[in-house]
């Protein structure tokens, strides 16, 4: 058991625990907060995996902006709780069963065969994943997708405004 493994197992435990808690929480606010914790844990994992830039983006965009938006909407709609309704009694058990099958399949995929996956992660070269290297890659090889992303975000913004806008008739 190396230190790395211990750190990883700890972080993995936290991530899974927060994810399960998010699922289990009755209150949507709690769910959102657990998810924030999950995101931060994963961001720490990113840091450890030599992805410092992505880790910071994860914290600022996901844990910050997106989750705040979630919380804001939950509170706006007052949607912390959903009243119990009778529908679909067998959906839960079947979903759990299928989830187990999926997990088993993933297990088989990851552990069932020999190969490079079983090796330790290689030590990254100097400067791998630094903001500079990611920036260079983005603006050299992925310039056009990057610019298109900005358009996508603009469209999403306009779409959100259009979808949530109240009709004038209604407002009167």
């Amino acid at each position, binding site marked *: 058991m190396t230190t790395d493994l211990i750190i990883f197992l700890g972080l993995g435990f936290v991530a899974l625990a927060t994810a399960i808690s998010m699922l289990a929480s009755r209150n949507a606010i709690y769910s959102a907060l657990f998810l924030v914790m999950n995101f931060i844990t994963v961001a720490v994992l990113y840091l450890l995996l030599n992805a410092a830039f992505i880790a910071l983006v994860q914290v600022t965009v996901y844990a910050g902006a997106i989750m705040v938006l979630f919380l804001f909407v939950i509170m706006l709609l007052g949607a912390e709780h959903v009243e119990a309704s009778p529908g679909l009694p067998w*959906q839960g058990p*079947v979903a759990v069963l*299928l989830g187990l099958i*999926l997990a088993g399949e993933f297990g088989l995929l990851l552990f069932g065969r020999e190969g490079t996956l079983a090796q330790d992660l290689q030590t990254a070269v100097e400067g791998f994943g630094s903001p500079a290297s990611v920036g260079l890659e983005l603006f050299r090889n992925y310039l056009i997708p990057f610019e298109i992303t900005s358009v996508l975000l603009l469209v999403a913004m306009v779409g959100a405004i259009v979808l949530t806008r109240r009709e004038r008739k209604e407002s009167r």
Partner: protein
Amino acid sequence: MTSIELGLDVGLFAYAPLIIFLPLLGLLINMVLGRRLGEWFVGTIASLAVASSFVIAVLQFLALNSHPEGAQVLVADWITIGDLDVAWSLKIDTLSVAMMLMVTGVSTLIHIYAAGYMHEDVRFQGDPGRYTRFFVYFNLFVAAMMVLVTADNYLMMFVGWEGVGLCSYLLIGFWYEKGEDGIGNAVAGKKAFVTNRIGDLGFMIAMFLVFWQFGSLNFDQVFTSAHTAGAAAGGVITAITIFLLVGAAGKSAQLPLHVWLPDAMAGPTPVSALIHAATMVTAGIFMIARNHVLFDLAPFSSNLVALVGGATALFAATIAVAQFDIKRVLAFSTISQLGFMIAAVGMGAYVAAMFHLVTHAFFKALLFLSSGSVIQGVEHGHHHVEHGKKTRGAPFDPQDMRNMGGLRSKMQITFMVYVIGALALAGIPPLAGFWSKDEILADASQANPTVFWLLVAAAFFTAFYMGRQILMVFFGKPRSEAADHAPESPPVMTLPLILLALLSMVGGILNLPGFHTLTDWLEYTLEHAHAAEFNLVVAGFSTGLALLAIVLAWLIYGRVAMKKGKPDPLRRILGPIFVGMHNKWWVDELYNFVIVRPYVALARFLAKYVDWRFWHDWFHDIVLARTFQRGAWWLSKAFDLKVIDGIGNGLGDLTKGAAARLRTLQTGYVRNYALSVFVGVILVIGYFLIR
């Protein structure tokens, strides 16, 4: 003469196809523009087309002088099927060029004549619009005739053969709505066509036999194979030649297929002159001359040919004696003269036949055209009289010689050329007909006594009926007011007549005894074309007979001129024989009784009982229609309603039921859908796992 002296070369042969295409060009121009160009242009273009064709023929003649072996001019590949290879290739040799010169030369003169004649004719008949059509047909005829004479294989010859037959049919029925009962001309055309069809069938069977025996349709190849095969193929060659004789008899109006030619006189007179006297009807003689190799190998057929020719010559000559229609006399005369030629080719005297063919073309065309001039003159006179009277008189036949008489002074040019033509036909020296007819008689005297006597008798009758005709038409007093007022024809008509009269006078120099120009010329094509020696006894005998016949005719018709309304004086002398002659020996009636009537009865029977009662009433209505109805009824009730509808409705019900069950799957719960997607994901990953 060599080519250097003339400055000419074989290259001239290359122009040969023009001889066919120039008349075609003329007819195309007239067809497209004829109505707009006006009569003068139409006539000029048609005549020019044929005249230029004649020029081409002369060029071929010059080329042939320096290269007498002739040439093959390929126009187009036509049919290539397995071993059969038929090309449209023109055979330019002395025989075909002789025909070309004669046909295009005479055609040119007749075209010019027709330009004047048809001008009047279309007005008499009351449809000036048909002027163009006439010349289109006329040019088409020349083109078809050229295809016929230049053919180098049986199939191409057959194309021309049928082409001229078609033109003949179209031109006989040119005034198709006229004639007896308004369909007389059309019936005459049909008769010609059907009779010719019998001959064509013979030609076709001969063609099939040739291909079966020799594996080729090309003349040269067939003749070479026939030479080598010789007696081994004797039976087949005899059969081929007999069937060819049937074809020739149809086209050249020989016994027993002669009946169509007299009726063909229903066509306008230039048509009679060109097609039914000078050119088309000689196609049979040309065809036999072309196939002389085969006929030489089949003595039986040759004898048969000679006998048919001789019999026809005498038979038709006797009928001509007792005809009153000016053109019918000439028609039977034509049949008789064609009999002379057929007899000649049958005796192997191909040169004599070709010689007579050419001279006959001259003087028979002359006679027909002159008769046209007479007819139109009388018609003019008739109109003049009618115009004066202002009331319509009794029906008047401008072709009936009993209505004529005394035209000598009214139509002097016509009278003179007519006499020249008649004397040439009668065989009075030194006119063209004498030399050619005498050559045939001289050949016959050596080759075949039976035929010789038949021909001599025919020659006697020939002189007699021509004398009779001239005396009836031109001498005595006019027997009708129309004849009294008949004017002479315009120069456009008389000029060709004069030219033809000159040709009829001097045509004999083509093959004068001692010189044998035509014999030498044709020798290149017709091997061992022997020239019969001039036989003074035969010549003197036949001339004497002809003169005797003319004197006899004068005694009967000239001494006491025929009076109006009186019967023919010959009738008194000959009695029932004259009736027989007048009625053409009842051949038409015989055919009518033996063939036409039973045929029509059979056709009626077949139409009424077999076709209508059996096929229509019983088979169609009862067997087919009722069975079909029953079947349809059963199908609609039992099959359609139960099975077909069952399938259709069943499919519908199936879909409906399945849909009713399947729609319950659509719970509307998004989570359910997500679940099914999830199942799919698991299955796909599972597939990749176990793959």
